[in-house]
């Protein structure tokens, strides 16, 4: 589940009510007013000791506030685009340097930027992953493994009126690397801010009256305990110019965490759509006004006129709520959905589609954002003296003093600065067309469709290492497997014997007297499309192929990120591998790495064959008729399976319904010469590669 940070704030506020006027005043207002207000209050209180007491409370509150700010400052990042092409703010969330910022901050920098922390150091940073629709970017600061970090607070615990502060780099003032602190309250929750086109959409975000100015973008909005409420991203600027108007917005921490796992994959992420439109009716219900027949929601039974009740276990009351919630999910996630149809409440789980198709998102990114201002070519000589002062213009975000921080601070990567000169030509260039420092260049790999493929490669390595260690005790997959046991078809009670052959060229499944043989790509596609039991062979064959060949030689393989399984937490590590027209998605437990599910897609507009490996008991009993989200079943019950033992149960599902469960009795490797290939399949084998 989500981070639980919901501290009980109310009860102990009681003894402090006497000081309410005082501390609220101190907290809200300009610091300069404090002494006079205190003096005034002291003078009007008859009991001097009460005043002393109040003053003491003020002192306590004040100290806690400054302590919280001092702590929070450490994790604040000041982002500078090399060459003075802009910048912004960010916040560190892991000790190995991963930090969140805005897409619109990182975008002018491309793959490399410089980041200052309040410790006075400038760090090299590389892009990791981006979410152009949600305006998020994950970057990694390099050079330390003990960066100070901020922890997310649960977005649902944040209330209107809660104290908060924004720390960051407004107007890029932090050329001395000391960020700016502005305080305020949460002015609104669950706000929706329209996107420009389909990019930079802010759903379910927070609104604050802390001063938000250009350059605060990407920075943290902290609560009074210096925990992270969200990522500041935009403000309502209208006729008054680009300065604070008392209305700033922060992307919710919950949304950021939904995307975080996928940002780690180095991909360019897309957002989700239900495939249906909804409207708020006069009676206050939210009804489907249009629905795509190709959507998963349609396959799960949602129809025109149905009333949406809950999404992701959150009650929706207006069409706005639906839009607000959907904007916080990555594409392809499966989320719980409850709706009412003909007086009957249906609980199900829907797979959300991508907002964009194909390269549409990449095209939009190109056109939606203005190209970075042309950075002046740096003269080869030392230019560390120049520190142009541009702080009077509100737009100084665009034209900061260029490399002042860089010039003042020694670069913190290893001392190979000198010897890297020769290969500098081959390194990627930063926004000022200078070669990126070696330490950063080592962590940058550009590839179409990815923000930084380096990180995807890392995740793939982790994926295959975990997979291979989990199945280390399985018989060799080299020439295929033979698996036997008892099969139970859903709806039947009597198990039947089954035998399964998994080979690179041909796969076979025999249950009782029925036999399916798949020998070419079309056969797998047909099997999945028709929802046949044999479609579990697709998943098994992907597993065999992945163990044997690894991601590099499997086909098109990439780490996808993290996604819930069957609409439930925790988020699983997800890897996609495409071969022979079938897309396989591997879901691994994030903690122990156990492979839980392989989904095989024949077609984006159809249900995948879900092959569950040693599924939890609740799942075996779950179908579309008894699915509900209010029971606690299954939330934490699948931990009793040891990770290294060989699979005992294979379970095939389509949509939300089970199809067949296999209880395994034997799992053996096929000898090369032991089982000669059947003659009639040879023709198909050729087509298979």
């Amino acid at each position, binding site marked *: 589940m989500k981070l639980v940070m919901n501290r009980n704030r109310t009860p*102990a506020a009681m003894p402090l009510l006497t000081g309410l006027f005082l501390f*609220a005043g101190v907290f809200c*207002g300009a610091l300069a007013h404090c002494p006079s207000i205190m003096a005034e209050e002291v003078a009007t209180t008859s009991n001097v000791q009460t005043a002393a007491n109040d003053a003491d409370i003020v002192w306590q509150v004040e100290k806690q506030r400054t302590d919280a700010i001092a702590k929070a400052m450490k994790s604040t990042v000041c982002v500078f685009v090399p060459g003075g092409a802009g910048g912004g703010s960010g916040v560190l969330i892991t000790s190995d340097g991963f930090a969140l910022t805005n897409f619109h901050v990182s975008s002018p920098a491309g793959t490399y930027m410089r980041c200052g922390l309040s410790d006075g150091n400038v760090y090299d940073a590389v892009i990791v992953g981006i979410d152009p629709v949600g305006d998020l970017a994950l970057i990694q600061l390099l050079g330390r493994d003990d960066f100070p970090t901020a922890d997310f607070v649960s977005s649902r615990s944040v209330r209107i*009126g*809660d104290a908060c502060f924004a720390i960051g780099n407004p107007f890029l003032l932090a050329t001395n690397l000391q960020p700016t602190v502005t305080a305020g309250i949460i*002015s609104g929750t669950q*706000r929706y801010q329209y996107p420009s086109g389909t990019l930079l959409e802010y759903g379910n975000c927070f609104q604050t009256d802390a001063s938000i100015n250009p350059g605060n973008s990407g920075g943290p909005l902290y609560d*009074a305990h210096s925990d992270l409420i969200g990522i500041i991203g935009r403000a309502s600027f209208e006729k008054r110019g680009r300065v604070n108007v008392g209305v700033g917005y922060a992307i919710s921490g919950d949304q950021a965490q939904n995307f975080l796992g996928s940002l780690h994959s180095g991909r360019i992420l897309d957002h989700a759509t239900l495939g249906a439109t909804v409207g708020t009716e006069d009676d206050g219900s939210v009804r489907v006004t249009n629905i795509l027949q190709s959507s998963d929601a349609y396959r799960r039974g949602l129809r025109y006129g149905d009333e949406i009740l809950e999404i992701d276990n959150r009650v929706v009351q207006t069409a*706005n709520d639906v839009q607000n919630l959907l904007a916080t999910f990555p594409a392809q996630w499966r989320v719980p959905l409850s709706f009412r149809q003909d007086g009957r409440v249906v609980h199900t789980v829907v797979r959300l589609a991508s907002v964009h198709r194909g390269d549409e998102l990449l095209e939009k990114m190109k056109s939606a954002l203005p190209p970075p201002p042309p950075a002046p070519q740096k003269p080869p000589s030392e230019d560390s003296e120049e520190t142009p002062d541009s702080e009077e213009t509100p737009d100084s975000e665009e034209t900061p003093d260029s490399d002042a921080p860089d010039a003042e601070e020694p670069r913190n990567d290893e001392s190979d600065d000198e010897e890297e000169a020769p290969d500098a030509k081959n390194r990627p260039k930063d926004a000022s067309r200078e070669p990126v420092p070696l330490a950063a260049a080592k962590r940058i790999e550009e590839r179409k469709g990815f923000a930084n493929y380096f990180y995807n490669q890392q995740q793939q390595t982790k994926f295959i290492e975990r997979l291979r260690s989990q199945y280390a005790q399985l018989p060799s997959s080299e020439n295929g497997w033979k698996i036997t046991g008892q099969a139970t078809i859903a709806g039947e009670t009597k198990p039947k014997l089954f035998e399964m052959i998994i080979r690179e060229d041909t796969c076979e499944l025999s249950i009782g007297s029925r036999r399916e043989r798949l020998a070419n790509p079309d056969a797998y596609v047909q099997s999945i499309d028709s929802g046949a039991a044999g479609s579990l062979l697709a998943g098994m064959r992907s597993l065999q192929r992945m163990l044997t060949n690894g991601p590099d030689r499997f086909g098109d393989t990439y780490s996808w990120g993290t996604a819930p399984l069957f609409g439930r937490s925790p988020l699983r590590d997800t890897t996609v591998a495409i071969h022979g027209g079938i897309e396989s998605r591997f879901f691994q437990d994030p903690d122990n790495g156990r492979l839980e599910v392989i989904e095989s897609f024949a077609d984006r507009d159809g249900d995948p064959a879900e092959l569950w490996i040693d599924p939890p008991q609740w799942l075996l009993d779950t179908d579309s008729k008894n699915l509900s989200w209010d029971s606690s079943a299954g939330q934490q019950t699948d931990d009793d399976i040891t990770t290294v033992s060989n699979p005992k149960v294979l379970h095939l599902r389509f949509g939300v319904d089970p199809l067949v469960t296999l209880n395994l009795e034997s799992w053996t490797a096929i000898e090369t010469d032991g089982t000669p290939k059947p003659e009639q399949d040879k023709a198909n084998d050729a087509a298979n590669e």
Partner: protein
Amino acid sequence: MMPPTNRSRHRLRRHFWMLFLAALMIGMVMEPATAQPSLARSSSQVQDRVVKIYGAGGVGGLDAYQSGFIVSPAGHVATAWSSVLDVDPIVILGDGRRFESKIVGFEPALELAVLKLDGSDLPYFEVPSGADAPVARWGDPVLAVSNLFNIATGNEPASVLQGRIAARSKLDARRGTFQTSYRGEVWLLDLVANNPGAAGGALVDLDGNLVGMLGKELRDRKTGVWLNYAIPADVLRAPIGDIIAGRKTVSPVDDDPMLSRDKSHNSETLGFKLIPDVLETTPVYVDTIAADGPASRADVRPDDLVLLVNGRRVAHQRAFREQLRRIDRRDNVTLTIQRENEILELAIRP
């Protein structure tokens, strides 16, 4: 036994306070969260009394939305007088309920309008008189609750901004630089409260008491500085009270009989001409004045906008003509007009 001396009593008291302080500090150590102030309670307790108002506008840089707050359980809503109210506005309550409303009260000099919607048992603000104790003082922390920028729709909560009262002062200290007809005292605020759509929102103290009504956007013509202000609740109390009690209304009179054309007033008998009535709702702008006519004697001038006739609102020329039909030609007529930023009351004697 000796009675405790003064000194020992003092010591006792000191002990008590030390204990109390110690208890407090223990409480803080054990639950650091507690000492952190949150205005969540102050914010939520007024949400059900602040409303979103939608009306005319949406073109030419004019916003079609603003804020208001409920001042009677029967559904009187105080808001800022503005072009949004050129049509009968739609009012959305905090719970998302949607009402059509009528403008029942209108104080041009206060930039105040009172709407009436068909409700009962609604939560509402008492408008304080400030007679017993000042409504607020310099330096007081306040919350501005409004739907600025129309961020919230339906049942979504209004935006809450925090700040302090910077001063109580008269706007006309800089007369001429601010485009406002309001001449009275205002709360000057240190927060960016007066944004598009914030006009008519509630300014409250931390206990949820009404302190004032947020004003319109106001910009100094010379310096370009935007001013943030609210009209104090004690200034609003009497006019709002009069309107709620029905002692004062701007609703057109329907019970006075229509007189025949040769017995009633019209603009000719008053001695001026209006701009051509070409629209459904042409505003009542004076075009020309007859020399030595009654209007001329009362100092009516071209380009004056007639807001009220004998205290009754005339939103357009049709309403103006109809009002005049109910006034005997021999009677005086009082016009409330807007001339640039001034609200004037002119009595025309036939």
